[in-house]
């Protein structure tokens, strides 16, 4: 390999490794963070190949990239907002600056296309300045006050502001505890997060109207009066019952709380069609009346980082600088030859001779780790409330704790989740464990 080619490969691979590692920290989406880390691992495997350690590159891809795949799976299962959709919508609606490319999954450039209902209704899109909400004009342009380019006002905020110009009143509320409301900025007494300014909702006014509207489960801003498909994602629109504003707001707050606290379990049935409405919460937030300091604190609250971010960045930069200085200044005893032996063979021999114990130990460690993980999960599952019972698919009164066939019709019993209301009291507390054991022995249908 010529030196120039090696340099090009080195620079591009290390660029990818570093940029994606940093991108992992910048993105608001856990899913993207996992993918970015995977890309970083792959780039590192490329660097290993460049260094002549082919075996390690292969192991890197097999173990680390495969491990990250599992991690991504866990993220999708566990996080309330794995795609960062909620965070992203919040940021867009509040016109916040922030780390760009990694957080975005819709282009900034075409916001006018996001207002189909308005154009349907024949209303004009109002363009406004992100900093001066009082500026509004019918077409795009730049703000007469600060020169920033205008953006179309979000339809809901627009509607609300025209409705509420008279009655609106600013209070400060906690993003996690919507019941906390006070007249001046400060910290939430429950969780210590910075309070954010919200517009207080008027008691009731039927903004949606009496007719039922159809809305996309993913894009709540898409609303029309007849059924059809979403213009953005093509999903079928979901019918929404007309609700009064205050009910809807309560529901949104309830949803937001649920998302942030218990999150992972089941949702109430009547809100499943409105999952996207949490995003609309952000329309109520208003950044005016906040100092840049509070503004920053709120962003830190909302993002995936703790408030110690500046210190962490300082420490990271400091340690990296220190390491680089040490690396450059130290006279390394360089050997000017390449490896004479085939690395794979040599490592294999070493592993099977001198490092046999280490090899076995590594295997044991992996097994122990996996067993530990499974044990943890098992205990957590036992602690959970849901109990499985087996029920005849036709004869619903046939219920037993072991799988088998129905005594009435001979069909295979299906496992159902025991409803606590119907059967919870009948079991003494001690038999729960036993039942769990039986269920695990029997396996699942």
């Amino acid at each position, binding site marked *: 390999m010529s030196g120039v080619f090696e340099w090009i490969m080195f620079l591009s691979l290390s660029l990818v490794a570093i940029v994606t590692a940093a991108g992992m920290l910048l993105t608001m989406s856990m899913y993207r963070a996992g993918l970015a880390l995977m890309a970083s691992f792959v780039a590192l495997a490329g660097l290993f190949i*460049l260094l002549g*350690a082919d075996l390690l590159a292969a192991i890197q891809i097999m173990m680390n990239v495969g491990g990250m795949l599992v991690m991504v799976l866990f993220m999708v299962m566990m996080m309330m907002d794995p795609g960062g959709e909620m965070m992203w919508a919040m940021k867009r609606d509040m016109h916040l600056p922030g780390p760009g490319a990694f957080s975005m999954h819709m282009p900034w450039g075409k916001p006018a296309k996001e207002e189909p209902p308005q154009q349907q209704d024949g209303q004009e899109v109002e363009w406004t300045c992100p900093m001066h909400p009082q500026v509004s004009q019918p077409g795009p342009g730049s703000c007469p006050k600060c020169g920033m380019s205008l953006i179309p006002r979000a339809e809901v905020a627009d509607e609300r502001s025209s409705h509420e110009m008279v009655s609106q009143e600013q209070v400060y509320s906690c993003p996690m505890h919507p019941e906390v409301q006070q007249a001046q900025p400060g910290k939430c007494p429950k969780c210590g997060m910075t309070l954010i300014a919200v517009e207080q909702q008027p008691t009731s006014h039927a903004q949606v109207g009496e007719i039922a509207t159809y809305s996309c489960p993913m894009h709540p801003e898409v609303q029309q009066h007849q059924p059809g498909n979403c213009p953005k994602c093509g999903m079928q629109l979901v019918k929404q019952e007309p609700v009064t504003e205050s009910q809807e707001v309560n529901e949104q707050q309830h949803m937001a709380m649920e998302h942030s606290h218990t999150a992972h379990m089941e949702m109430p049935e009547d809100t499943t069609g409105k999952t996207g409405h949490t995003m609309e919460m952000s329309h109520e937030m208003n950044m005016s009346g906040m100092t840049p300091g509070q503004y920053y604190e709120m962003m830190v609250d909302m993002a995936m980082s703790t408030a110690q971010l500046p210190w962490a960045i300082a420490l990271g930069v400091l340690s990296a600088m220190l390491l680089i200085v040490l690396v450059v200044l130290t006279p390394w005893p360089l050997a000017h030859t390449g*490896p004479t032996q085939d690395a794979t063979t040599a490592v294999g021999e070493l592993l099977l001779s001198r490092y046999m114990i280490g090899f076995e130990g590594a295997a044991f460690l992996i097994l122990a780790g996996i067993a530990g993980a499974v044990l943890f999960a098992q205990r957590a599952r036992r602690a959970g409330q849901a109990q499985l019972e087996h029920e005849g698919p036709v004869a619903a009164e046939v219920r037993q704790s072991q799988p088998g066939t129905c005594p009435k019709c001979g069909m295979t019993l299906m496992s159902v989740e025991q409803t606590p209301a119907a059967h919870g009291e009948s079991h003494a507390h001690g038999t729960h464990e036993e039942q769990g054991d039986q269920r695990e022995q029997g396996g699942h249908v």
Partner: protein
Amino acid sequence: MNGPGLVAYLIVGALLFGIGIVGVLSQRNALMVLMSIEILLNAALLTLVAFWRFVGPNNFDAQVFAIIIFTIAAVEMAAGLGLFLLVFRQRGNANVDELKELKR
């Protein structure tokens, strides 16, 4: 022209290490902390392999040690995931700044 030398690789390793430190110290979600630890381990791995290549290319003990680092990374990930899964089941989230029951 020679290819990139030892110092170039070590600088990349140092930068990755810095990024990993930022992540470990600043991330709120326990899973993200685990992922940042992975970056730290990878930075160490890169420096190890670079040293093997440029300081002792015929001493393959370094590569065996690298394999052990892989193992540790995998075990850490498995145990960490199990632990945080348990925390998540009990609390509904896995934010490290809310895990402070042992404080009092």
